């Protein structure tokens, strides 16, 4: 195309709705239009002269840079979906196109990237597909979608919420969504796993302690309720809380006050309580291991999250969701799961629920560098078993550390020990490869 001379390029750049910026060969930003500033949240004068990775904070800046690829190959790239994190801490999906920039003699002197915010497009696409979303929760299940519909109202109410469901069903995601949708969203979100802290330490962890309260208490320490002031405290595994402490928690819920261990001075509790458990609290109440009054006080609003096996419509959706996420984070281009893999996943029971599906795909990403995820990329315990007369026991699922080590060793073998070639195939840096080799496969 013939481009007229003396055209006001600056005016054209400023009139565009898409963000446009250019870099030189040292990755220094040389121009940055108004729309780029609006999408990214940085004024053009603050961006020009800085390295592009200090301005963009995108999912591909650390290792999978589109401009670097274009400058290296001389080719263009278009409509790639990535995400950026803006200075206000919000994650925004964008679509980018990139090209090398050449001077009059045809020498590459830098690159140009254009991008647009596709948040609204993604929201509309999901609506059309019958997908309900809220924060990090995505679902096609009508039962889950109903809960997501109710969630903003529940969040706004300020009531105590009890989340019930098997391990890995997303109770913490729901708790976080209740916090971010509530008027307390500007305050802290403090998560405490009551099952992970020994009973005798849990009281001090929750309510803090005064100086000299016990042998090692050389200084006073504030607890998690005090840290959650103005925000939300998430009490996970509430069913593991000792009975003696249940009485104190009940007092906090009823009277909004607590005393740090070893102190007589009451403190006001200003934190919304969201609790969760995978245990059957009603059965625990019946057998006397959980207080009935606390159970009812906690469960002002009670949400039961269905296990993944009861919402098979979410398996394909979550698979696509996690693959897109891993692609963005790892800079890979895995197109999806093969029909055989999808068949297998749809027939799997998922005792570990959504977390298990996420782990399966993370494992598959280690072995699959592009194209489709196939059966060979899945953990052994998922693949159809080959009968062996010598061993009737199902193989144990490998750890993530062992899987990474195995993937690295296999790639090195394929490339006759050439580390950089193995790194390129696996999509990891040489530092990561060295670390995986150093830490070994574990037990």
């Amino acid at each position, binding site marked *: 195309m013939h481009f007229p001379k003396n055209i006001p390029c600056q005016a054209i750049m400023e009139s565009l709705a898409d963000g446009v910026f250019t870099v030189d060969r040292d990755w220094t930003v040389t121009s940055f239009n108004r729309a780029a*500033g609006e999408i*990214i*949240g*940085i*004024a053009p*004068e*603050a*961006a020009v002269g*800085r*390295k592009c*990775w*200090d*301005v*963009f*904070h*995108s*999912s591909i*800046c*650390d*290792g999978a840079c589109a401009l670097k690829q274009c400058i290296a190959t001389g080719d263009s790239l278009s409509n790639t979906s990535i995400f950026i*994190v*803006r*200075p*206000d*801490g*919000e*994650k925004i999906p964008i679509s980018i196109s990139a090209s090398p920039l050449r001077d009059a003699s045809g020498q590459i002197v830098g690159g140009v990237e254009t991008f647009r915010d596709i948040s609204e497009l993604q929201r509309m696409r999901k609506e059309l597909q019958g997908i309900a979303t809220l924060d990090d929760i995505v679902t096609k299940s009508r039962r889950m979608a109903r809960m997501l519909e109710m969630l903003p109202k529940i969040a706004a109410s300020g009531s105590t919420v009890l989340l019930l469901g098997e391990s890995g069903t997303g109770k*913490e995601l729901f708790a*976080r969504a209740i916090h*971010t949708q509530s008027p307390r969203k*500007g305050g*802290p*979100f*403090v*998560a405490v796993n009551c099952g992970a802290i020994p009973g005798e330490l849990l009281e001090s962890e929750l309510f803090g302690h005064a100086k000299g309260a016990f042998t090692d208490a050389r200084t006073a320490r504030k607890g998690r309720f005090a*840290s959650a002031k103005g925000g939300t405290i998430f009490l996970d595994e509430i069913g593991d809380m000792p009975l003696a402490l249940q009485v104190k928690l009940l007092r906090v819920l009823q009277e909004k006050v607590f005393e740090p261990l070893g102190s007589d001075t009451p403190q006001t509790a200003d934190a919304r309580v969201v609790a969760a458990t995978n245990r059957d609290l009603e059965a625990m109440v019946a057998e006397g291991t959980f207080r009935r009054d606390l159970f009812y006080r906690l469960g002002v609003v009670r949400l039961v999250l269905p296990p993944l096996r009861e919402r098979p419509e979410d398996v394909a959706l979550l698979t696509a969701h996690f693959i897109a996420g891993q692609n963005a*984070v790892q800079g890979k281009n895995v197109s999806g799961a093969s029909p055989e893999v999808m068949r297998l996943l749809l027939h799997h029971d998922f005792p570990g629920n959504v*977390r298990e599906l*996420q*782990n399966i795909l*993370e494992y598959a990403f280690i072995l699959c560098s592009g194209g489709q995820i196939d059966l060979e990329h899945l953990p052994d315990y998922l693949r159809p078993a080959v009968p062996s007369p010598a061993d009737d026991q199902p193989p144990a699922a490998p*750890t*993530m*550390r062992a899987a990474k080590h195995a993937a690295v060793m296999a790639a090195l073998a394929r490339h006759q020990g050439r580390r950089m070639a193995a790194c390129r195939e696996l999509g*990891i*840096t040489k*530092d*990561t490869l060295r*670390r995986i080799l150093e*830490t070994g496969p574990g037990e």
Partner: protein
Amino acid sequence: MNEKTPAASRPSLICLACYEDRLASLLETAASLRLYRVADGRAVFTGECLMPGEGLPGLPGALRRAGVNRLVCGGATCRCVEMFLAAGIRMDPWIAGQVDEVLSAVVHDRVSALRAPGICPRRAAGGRGGRGRQ
């Protein structure tokens, strides 16, 4: 960053979320989590921490177990910042620069001078701020 905290007044273990020889653009895409012991005006490399299998949600716990009490990193979402603050780890997000430059800034207590463009002081302190435009 917390300007009132004295520089390296006692030995502390600091984690830098890096990509190659610079701070990673985003915490969640960092290729290496390098640990440095800071004492007596020096920062000494002590090893690396692995990103846990479950990714960022497991990182505050992993860093705490490793004894880390401060994290210096590039961009981070609000949720991510909340997780580290709740875990009691001091966090300096939205910092940009080469590893050597950042370590020198840590030792001399001037990390805030390395704020990424467009970042307001409150955001860099790990709090909730506005759009952060300059």
